[in-house]
């Protein structure tokens, strides 16, 4: 099965090439077929490889396929090497399966768009880059995939490029993530120059041997890699790009900004967890950032009126949970939540997309309403996904993954109680805003009738993801509910749990009850506040304090305003001052000197014969003088 490894990223790249070169000339059906089939076959390959990994694990529980030597300089020899261990297998399955379902959905969703082949082309490139990222055995190859997904994010956010606002959103996303990418590149260089290799497994081994716990270099490298992860995963302080990235088409938001690209940061931290274990301050920072971000985004989501922005802030919040898990050392819990989040968040986006498209690109939830009779299938899928997001107890995948995170947070040494409390408050908020979304969109009076009949291409992905949003959680259940340890044992060799394996069953069960209670409480509050008696909320927002809070949360706690004042305006001011470009004036001075000399010389071209004769005589005089000297 080793031979199939390269197919997993290569097939989407092949689809990208075909569509890039002759996408315009192919028919819509062919474009859709090439676009979806390439990712679909990649998913099949990933499944086959994973199955054989489970059935007959190789030595070291990982396959390495070296494709070729990338750079062959002295002492620096990164290779194009694919590495598949259980972590990479899980990630590649998530990326390819969810990607395939979303591309299938796009066949009908983007059907009226004239950039149809361009869309599938970019999406294939994205899936290929993401698979390269998760299967990279070499840190430089990972960075290549990292940059590739950043590029595709830019291309796809600004997909409808005719509207300059979309271009601005794409640029904002690119620039903010670039800040993180720069930190990551610095971290890569630090790792490479100090440890002498760019192969990930070799790096981790050498780091644990050469760097003691808490050493300065380990802290620096870990902090820099964390910077990269913060940018890509839209955590504080680099989270401002994600809400604006909703300017792209809904499948893009589903795939890139919910399921895959934003989870690349989580994957990076999990992949280099050895390094983070050697830098406890950084790991604590990861947990704190995760906790603060999940609360930040939860409040912000509560005040949004654009349905996609609610989902964007929700994504930021859920990734905060994953960072929280990583920060307390629960690596496999983080990946578990990553997987279930991919299922229910992309389902939420796809459902929202059906509503948006049906209401002719209407995003404002307050102009929607009463759609549950008009779009019953979508309503069912949306409710399942919202329930999973809220972690409604026992039946949803979200419950089990969030529960795993919360119990690991409780058991952690450094401030675990506070982290767990933050997580519980966050669970309440999550339930509140997600059911607010459901009630505003699907309940109440029907304001606009949707004119969309979802075809097979939409129904199949919605159905598949709904099933996964329910069933996906049963891979890892707490002790009190069946004690299924399939997921963590699968990842055990790669992501060992740093926490004591046997904590009191009672504590775990209590936490589970608390978490379930919080989500049900949120559901009840949402029903009361947004369906039963919406006047309460209106009354609160009418007061001065309420209105100010609402404005603050709507603007994402004012981060955009702050960054504008702190960074953008001074930069623009300096640019305006240097309008004439001081550096450029040196090269302009050369030009000016040239022109001046030319103008001066031009005056000797009088066109008169006598003048030229005089010039000849002068030349003769000088010449003879030189000869005679």
């Amino acid at each position, binding site marked *: 099965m080793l031979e199939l490894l390269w197919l997993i990223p290569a097939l989407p790249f092949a689809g990208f090439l075909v569509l890039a070169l002759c996408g315009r000339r192919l028919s819509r059906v062919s474009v859709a077929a090439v676009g979806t089939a390439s990712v679909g076959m990649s998913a099949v390959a990933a499944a086959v490889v994973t199955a054989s990994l489970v059935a007959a694990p190789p030595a070291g529980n990982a396959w390495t396929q070296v494709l070729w030597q990338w750079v062959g300089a002295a002492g620096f020899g990164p290779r194009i090497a694919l590495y598949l261990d259980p972590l990479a297998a899980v990630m590649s399955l998530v990326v390819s399966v969810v990607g395939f379902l979303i591309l299938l959905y796009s066949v009908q969703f983007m059907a009226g768009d004239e950039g149809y082949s361009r869309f599938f082309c970019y999406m294939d490139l994205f899936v290929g880059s993401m698979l390269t990222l998760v299967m990279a055995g070499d840190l430089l190859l990972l960075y290549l995939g990292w940059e590739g997904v950043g590029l595709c994010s830019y291309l796809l956010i600004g997909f409808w490029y005719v509207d300059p606002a979309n271009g601005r959103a794409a640029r904002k996303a690119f620039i903010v993530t670039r800040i993180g990418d720069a930190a990551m590149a610095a971290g890569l260089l630090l790792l490479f120059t100090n440890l002498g290799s760019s192969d990930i497994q070799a790096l981790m081994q050498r780091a644990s041997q050469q760097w003691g716990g808490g050493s300065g270099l380990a802290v620096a490298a870990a902090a820099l890699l964390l910077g990269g992860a913060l940018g890509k995963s839209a955590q504080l302080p680099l989270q401002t790009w994600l809400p604006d990235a909703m300017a792209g088409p809904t499948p893009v938001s589903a795939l890139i900004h919910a399921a895959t690209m934003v989870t690349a940061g989580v994957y990076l931290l999990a992949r280099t967890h050895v390094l983070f274990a050697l830098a406890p301050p950084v790991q604590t920072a990861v947990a704190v950032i995760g906790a603060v971000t999940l609360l930040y985004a939860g409040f912000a989501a509560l005040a949004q009126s654009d349905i996609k922005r609610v989902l964007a802030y929700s994504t930021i919040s859920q990734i905060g949970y994953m960072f929280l898990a990583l920060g307390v050392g629960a690596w496999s819990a983080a990946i578990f939540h990553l997987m279930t989040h991919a299922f229910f968040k992309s389902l939420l986006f796809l459902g929202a997309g059906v509503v948006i498209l049906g209401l002719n690109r209407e995003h404002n939830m307050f102009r929607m309403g009463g759609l549950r009779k008009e779009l019953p299938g979508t309503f069912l899928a949306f409710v399942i996904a919202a329930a999973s997001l809220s972690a409604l107890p026992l039946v949803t995948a979200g419950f089990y993954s969030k529960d795993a995170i919360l119990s690991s947070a409780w058991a952690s040494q450094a401030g675990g109680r506070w982290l767990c409390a933050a997580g519980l408050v966050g669970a309440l908020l999550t339930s509140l805003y997600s059911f607010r979304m459901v009630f505003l969109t699907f309940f109440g009076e029907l304001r606009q009738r949707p004119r969309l009949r979802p075809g097979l291409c939409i129904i199949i992905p919605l159905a598949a993801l709904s099933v996964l949003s329910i069933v996906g959680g049963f891979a890892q259940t707490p002790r009190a509910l069946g004690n299924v340890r399939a997921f963590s044992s699968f990842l055990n060799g790669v992501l060992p749990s740093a926490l004591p394996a046997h904590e009191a069953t009672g504590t775990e069960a209590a936490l589970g009850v608390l978490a379930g209670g919080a989500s049900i409480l949120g559901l009840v509050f949402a029903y009361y506040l947004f369906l039963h008696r919406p006047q309460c909320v209106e009354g609160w927002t009418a007061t001065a304090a309420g209105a100010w809070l609402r404005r603050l949360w709507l603007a994402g706690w004012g981060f955009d305003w702050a960054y504008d004042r702190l960074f953008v305006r001074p930069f623009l001011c300096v640019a305006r001052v240097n309008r004439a470009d001081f550096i450029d004036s040196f090269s302009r001075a050369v030009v000016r000197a040239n022109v001046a000399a030319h103008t001066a010389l031009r005056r000797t*071209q009088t066109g*008169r014969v006598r003048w030229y*004769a005089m010039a000849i005589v002068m030349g003769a005089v000088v010449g003879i003088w030189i000869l005679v000297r």
Partner: protein
Amino acid sequence: MATVPVEHALMLAGILFALGVLGVMVRRNVVFTLMCIEIMLNASGLAFVVAGWRWGQADGQVMFFFILTMAASEVSVGLALVLQLYRHFRTLDVDAADKMRG
């Protein structure tokens, strides 16, 4: 035959040449310019003949012969051009033909 010092004869050639150069630089009438060119050619021919006399060989005179031939052809073409110039500009001012300026 004369036994004049060679420097004196050559200085005569130099003076005549300088006068011709002066005339080319000063005169605006194109016919005068051509005449001064003839003066210059004549002066250089004189220099050659003096050189031939100094060495007692025919080579100097042969050079003057060629200079003479060349002067004749140059004058004929030059005067034809003067006629064309006059027809075009209606004046013999050599400064009138300064379209190549700048």
